[in-house]
């Protein structure tokens, strides 16, 4: 899967992280991504949807249709226990990786 693709992997982690606090619809997750990454990952907002559906297919997310805050029909995503484990593992790996990168950058960049 997208583990080797930095961007995909990152999007997955961020999406999982967004719903880890509670169910959100796609727009909510998108806003969360924009807010929390300060626009760094602001590539193509629509790319979120294939990612969400893939995560659902992998059993990391589960979706249900409900009502949004505006009363409109919307699809809500919640994290599954497996998704939570995956998030914990990925976060750990990401930390190790970014820590290593930080270290390298610190040494060379001085």
């Amino acid at each position: 899967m997208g583990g080797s693709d930095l961007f995909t992997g990152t999007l997955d982690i961020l999406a999982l992280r967004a719903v880890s606090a509670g169910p959100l619809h796609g727009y909510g997750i998108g806003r969360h991504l924009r807010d929390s990454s300060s626009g760094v990952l602001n590539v193509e907002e629509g790319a979120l949807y294939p990612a969400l559906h893939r995560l659902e297919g992998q059993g990391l997310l589960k979706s249900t249709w409900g009502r949004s805050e505006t009363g409109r029909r919307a699809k809500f995503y919640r994290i599954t226990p497996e998704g939570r484990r995956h998030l914990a593992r990925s976060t750990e790996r990401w930390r190790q990786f970014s820590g290593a990168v930080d270290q390298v950058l610190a040494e060379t960049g001085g």
Partner: protein
Amino acid sequence: MSLWRDEAKARREARDEIRFYLEMRARELREQGMDPDEAWRTAVQAFGDPERIEQEVVGMDERARMRHSLGQWLASVAQDIRYAGRFLVGNRLFATVAVTTLALGIGATTAIYSLLDAALLQHPGVEDPGSLVAVYTTCRLGAPRCSSSYPDFIDYRDRTESLADLAATALFTASLGDEARGSRLVATEMVSGNFFSLLGVEPASGRLIQSADDPVGAGAQVVVISHALWRDHFGASPDVVGRTIRLNGSPFAVVGVASESFDGLTVARTTDLWVPLQASTTLIPGGLGRDGIWSERGSRWIGRLIGRLVPGVTPEQARAELLAVSDRLREEDPDARGPRSITLDPLSRYLAPVGSEEALPQFVWLLMGVVGMTLLLACANLANLLLARAATRKTEMGVRIAIGAGRRRLVRQLLAESLLLSGLGGAAGLLVARAVLALLGSFELPGGVAIGALDAGLEGRVLAAAAGLAAFTAVLCGLAPALHATRADVVAALKSGRAPEARGGAGRLRRALVATQVALCVVLLVGSGLFVRALGSALDADLGVRTEGVALAGFSPGLIGYSDVEALTLAEELRRWSLAQPGVRSAAVATVVPLVGGGRMGRFADVDGHERAPDDELRIDVVYVTPAYFETLGVPLLAGRDFDDADGAGAADVAVVNREMARRYWPEGHAVGGTLGYRTPPGAPPGPPIRVVGVADDVHWSDLVEEPTNFVFLPMAQTPTALTLTLAARTDGDASRLLPAIRTEARTVEPDLSLDLLTTMEDALGDLLMPQRMGALLLSAFAILALVLAAVGIAGVVSYTVSRQRRSIGVRMALGARRDQVVRMVLGGMMGPLAIGLLAGLAAAAVLDDALERFLYGVSPGDAATYVAIAVGLAVVALAATLLPARAAARIDPVEVLNAE
């Protein structure tokens, strides 16, 4: 739900989801102060192409859906297998019985199928075998496949248009001389020059025989050897081409080695080497050469004609054309030919050995039918076992239905159990098959096809067939019980807390299975009974000879360069030596001996005073014999005298004819004193008259069911021959004791002489009876297996019924029923299926035993004694199998049963 509907729904939802995002995003932008149109445009722009994203989302969903359903399916299959495995481990006795039953059924069927595959389904290694045909003409008594004469071959070849080409081949055993290793006998085919090009065979090295090697009257002394002979005899030597070898003493140059894939056209008979047809005059000293083999239509020595059909021509059209040619030949020269018919055999399969074209496939299919029936019987038994299991598992099934398992799911699980059983049975069956093939290795099929030489193995098609059989049995045995066990009424049964009494479906099904088993068993028993009786009557049969105490030794002095006169001296020497041995009462040498055959010489003849009927060729088989031939072989002389030492060269030509010939041409009984002569071409002087001095009884020459034909015996001293000779010696005691002495003596007299036959006449008869013996042995083995299976099946059904009816039996006994009444009640329940099975089996056997007729010597099909014995015997076994569990019913204690409620 259909995939299409799933996809439409996914698309709708994806569109809705994206629309919601864009609306929300635009609203956010509006709140930041953009005007509505610009907000919408900006939202869409930031999002990307909504159509494309929608497409990606739908694709994701579809992949997920497929992965999900596959995973679910695999998981449920794994669960089925786990359950099935757990069930079998928990019911070891049941599993063992079931697997053993299946292993025997599948194993035997697989073994016979591999035999069938090797004997009947393989094709020779030639180009486009589908357009090749073997051509035969009819002969004596309408036998469909006889040899052809050389002039016939030429006319068939040149006068037909439906055949692109026609080749001739004659089989012959030659002696391959080798200074280093002595001589050995090799299977030689004398072939016309177009043989290899017609077949499209390639050489492995050198070249093959060509038309240039085979000009009329001047055949080149060249030889092509088989790949196997090159490997085994010449040690795969690379320089074998160009070497000269000696065949029957004459030098032949090796010009090539045939391709490894071509080993001849006959099943289980490999050809060692090929020589040009025209070289046969050199190859066979004397022998064939003197009988005008190139000119006389009566000299039918070419065993087979092989034709290649013109594309688009059917074998039937070719046959019609050949028949027309044959009729024209008869019109042109009515003296030379009787009315003939033509037989064509396709070469899309290996040809059966000459004479067994019908018997071989019939016998193999018969075996196949027998094992197939045994397999069905095993299936019926397994179905019965599974039904009984199903009954005891009703509670389990009820619970699972109650907690929501679908019926389909349960049926699948039960089928998984029978699949696992049959898989195990199939695997064990391969071991059984291997054992059966090893056991059969020393037997021969009709036509002398040695099973060991068939190369019947357990690979490819055969393994696929075994796997197919296993799956087939699983469904056949498992489906009905599975459907039954999961019927809706089990839930009701569960509620009542008690399994229902056996009635309706299960009971009927089980009784039907018993009837089927009994019927199959009857068929197998009748079949084996007929075979055993036929074997017995064949052993007791009047074959026209007395087999006990006769030793036989065959030798071919012509093959090592003896002239005819030298051969006669050698024969006389061996005969005199035999007579001097202790216990030997008489001895003779002849070209043909009953039951073992030999080199028959066919001629056309005329009988003085007899007007030949238009449909009578008056063809005779000539046998050259020394004095005491009839006495030694125990052939009664019905009239006249035997030859004696006075009937030699220079004395008047004399003959003994067989009873059939005497009956046909001297109907008033005056054969002795009559004269006959060889027919000569019109205009040629008539042959010298031969006076009949005796009439001998008819004998069986090579087959137990053959009809008598015209035979004429001539004194060997008047017509010496170096062809195949057989020494026969009658002893007072055990003939086999004489055999080593004969071998030693033959070597003393002529060190180069190899004996191509050394046996007793009783053993020769045994070989002749091989198919009958094999049939009797196999059928008996399967019939006994069937009987045991049927008995187990019946006992199983009865004890099951009794266990289901414990309550009602208990009530009856409480109400005063006596024990014998209970037993009778249980017995009565079984009488129906037993009687139906018995009658159906007898009827089926009566239909089938017509197919056995060919193999049944001396037993009329529908042999009443066999049928009655089988019916009575089976009834006794069936009753015993019923009675044992029925007595258990009588021991039911009513108090105990009723208290248990």
